[in-house]
C-alpha cells in the first residue's frame, strides 16, 4: 500500500455518482427527524430558525446555506407533499413561494372597531413594509431581527430588536408551510370580478385560524384571501386580502430601517434577561457536548482511555472556543473535567461548569456523552459523590 494507491481510491470515490435512492433516503431521514422534533414541540422553532434566521442572512457562507438548504428543502417537500391533497393548491403556494416581491391590500374587521386597511409590501427574502392607517408604517427586517415603527402624525419612531412572529398574511403562509398539521380542501368555485375562481380552505389541528384562498385556475395565482383568526384577547379578527401582485418593482429604500430626520426615536424591548440566560445555557450545553464527543473519539483511539486533560483534545480538532463557558468567558477553561475511571459507567459525571456560586443550576456532562442541566446543587453533589465513591 502506498500513497498513490490511497489517492487512487479517494479519486475513484470522489467520482462516484450518488445513487438516486440515496436522495430518497435523505429525504426520509429529514422527514423522520422533523417528526421527532415535532413530537418534542421544537420542530417549528428549528426549521423557522434555520430557514428564516440563518439561510436568508447574507453573512452566512454559501456552503453552510447549501448544507442547510438540503435539509430545509426536504422538509419543505415532505410537509408540502403529504398533507396537501390538492396539487392545484400546491401550485398556488409555489407561486407565493417563488415571488421575488409581493404586494397586497388587506382589510381587517373586528367586532368593536371600524374596518382598517393595511397595504403590505414584501421584498424577498426578508424585508416587509406594512402601511397602516393614520400614517403609521411598520418596516421589518427578518434578517436583522429588527422592526421600525414610524408614526408620521406624531413624528415618532420606535425601534424594536425582538424578532416578530405574527406578521399577518405572509407569515401565516410561512407558518402553514412549515407546519405539517394543516390540511387543505377544495371548497368549490365562485365568481369574483367576472372571473371564475377556485377556493381552498386551509385549517390547522387545534387552531381556530381558518384561511380561504380563492385562486385563478388558469395561472394558479391567488386572487382573494379571507382569514379568520383571534387576537390575544379572544376577539375575532376577519381579514380580506385583495390586489395581490407578484414581482412588482419595489424600491429598496422603502424598506430601510432608518429613522427620518425630525423624528424622535425610542428603543423598545430588547432580548429579555431570561432569553439571554437560556441562550447562554444552551450554548454552554453545546460546547460541553462537543467536548464530550471529542473525548469519546479520543477514547476510541486510546483503547478506551479518556484524555488526562481537556488540552489533549486539541489534536482532535476541538476548537479552543469550545472550552470557554459563555456564561463565564473570562475563564480560559470554563469547565471542570473529571477523567473517568475504568470500567466507565455511562452515568458517571465527567464534566461540569466551573462555578463560584450555584445560581439557577449548571450543565453537567456524563460519560455516555449526554449533557443535563441540573437545577439543585444537592442533586449535583449526589452525582459527584457517586464518582468519589468509585
Amino acid at each position: 500500500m502506498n500513497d498513490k494507491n490511497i489517492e487512487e481510491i479517494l479519486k475513484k470515490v470522489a467520482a462516484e455518482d450518488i445513487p438516486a435512492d440515496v436522495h430518497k433516503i435523505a429525504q426520509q431521514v429529514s422527514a423522520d427527524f422533523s417528526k421527532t422534533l415535532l413530537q418534542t414541540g421544537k420542530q417549528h422553532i428549528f426549521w423557522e430558525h434555520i430557514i428564516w434566521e440563518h439561510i436568508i442572512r447574507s453573512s452566512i457562507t454559501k456552503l453552510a446555506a447549501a448544507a442547510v438548504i438540503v435539509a430545509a428543502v426536504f422538509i419543505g417537500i415532505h410537509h408540502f407533499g403529504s398533507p396537501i391533497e390538492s396539487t392545484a393548491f400546491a401550485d398556488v403556494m409555489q407561486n407565493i413561494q417563488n415571488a421575488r416581491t409581493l404586494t397586497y391590500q388587506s382589510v381587517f374587521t373586528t367586532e368593536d372597531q371600524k374596518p382598517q386597511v393595511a397595504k403590505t409590501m414584501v421584498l424577498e427574502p426578508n424585508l416587509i413594509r406594512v402601511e397602516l392607517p393614520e400614517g403609521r408604517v411598520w418596516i421589518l427586517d427578518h434578517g436583522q431581527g429588527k422592526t421600525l415603527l414610524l408614526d408620521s402624525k406624531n413624528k415618532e419612531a420606535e425601534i424594536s430588536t425582538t424578532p416578530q412572529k405574527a406578521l399577518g398574511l405572509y407569515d401565516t403562509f410561512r407558518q402553514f408551510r412549515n407546519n405539517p398539521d394543516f390540511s387543505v380542501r377544495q371548497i368549490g368555485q365562485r365568481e369574483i370580478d367576472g372571473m371564475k375562481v377556485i377556493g381552498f380552505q386551509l385549517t390547522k389541528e387545534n387552531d381556530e385560524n381558518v384561511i380561504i384562498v380563492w385562486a385563478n385556475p388558469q395561472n394558479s395565482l391567488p386572487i382573494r384571501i379571507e382569514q379568520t383568526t383571534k387576537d390575544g384577547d379572544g376577539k375575532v379578527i376577519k381579514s380580506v386580502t385583495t390586489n395581490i401582485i407578484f414581482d412588482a418593482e419595489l424600491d429598496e429604500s422603502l424598506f430601510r430601517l432608518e429613522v427620518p430626520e425630525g423624528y424622535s426615536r425610542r428603543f423598545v424591548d430588547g432580548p429579555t434577561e431570561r432569553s439571554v440566560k437560556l441562550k447562554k445555557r444552551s450554548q454552554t450545553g453545546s460546547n460541553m457536548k462537543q467536548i464530550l464527543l471529542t473525548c469519546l473519539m479520543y477514547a476510541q483511539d486510546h483503547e478506551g482511555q479518556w484524555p488526562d486533560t481537556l488540552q489533549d483534545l486539541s489534536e482532535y480538532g476541538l476548537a479552543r472556543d469550545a472550552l470557554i463557558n459563555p456564561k463565564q468567558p473570562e475563564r480560559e477553561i470554563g469547565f471542570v473535567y473529571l477523567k473517568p475511571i475504568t470500567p466507565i459507567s455511562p452515568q458517571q459525571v465527567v464534566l461540569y461548569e466551573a462555578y463560584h456560586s450555584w445560581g439557577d443550576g449548571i450543565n453537567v456532562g456524563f460519560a455516555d456523552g449526554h449533557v443535563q442541566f441540573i437545577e439543585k446543587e444537592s442533586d449535583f453533589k449526589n452525582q459527584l459523590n457517586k464518582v468519589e465513591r468509585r
Partner: protein
Amino acid sequence: MFLLSVLWKLTGDKELFTEAMQYALLGMWEHIEKLNGKKAGAYIYRIALTANSRAWRNRIGKDGELAKSRTNIDTDHGLLIVGQIHDKENKSEWVAKVRQAIARLPFKQGRAVVMRYLEQQDYKTVAEKLCCTEAGARSHVSKAIATLKSGLTAFIQQE
C-alpha cells in the same frame, strides 16, 4: 447538496449514510447557533465529519473490524489497487477500509482530505477554508494520507 454528497462519499453504504445523516441533522439542531457567521462553513464540515465518525464507530464491531456483510458496498472501481487486491470483493473491502480510516482521522486532516479529494478543490481553496497557507494545506493533506497509509498497512499486515 453538500451534506448529502459528502456523507454519501464518506459512507458509501446506505445504512451508514442513513445513520450519518441522522447524526448530521442532530448536529445541526444542537449547534444551530453556530450555523451562522464566518465560521458556519467550518461547523458544517465538523458536523458532517463528526456524523460520519459516529456512524462508522457504531458500525465497527468490538474487535475493531467491520463485519464482512457490512462491506458489500456497491462499487466497481476497476483496478483500484496494485499489489494485494485482486478480486472485486477485496476491492470493495479496501474502499470500505479507506472510508473507515477517514472516519478516524483528526478533524483537520479529515477536512483536508474531504476538500482536496472528495470535493476536488485546489490547495489554494483548501488553504483559504482551513485558514492556513497553501503549504499548511499540503501538510494537512499529506499527514492525512500518511495516517491513512499507516492504518491500512496495519490492515495488510493483519491479513
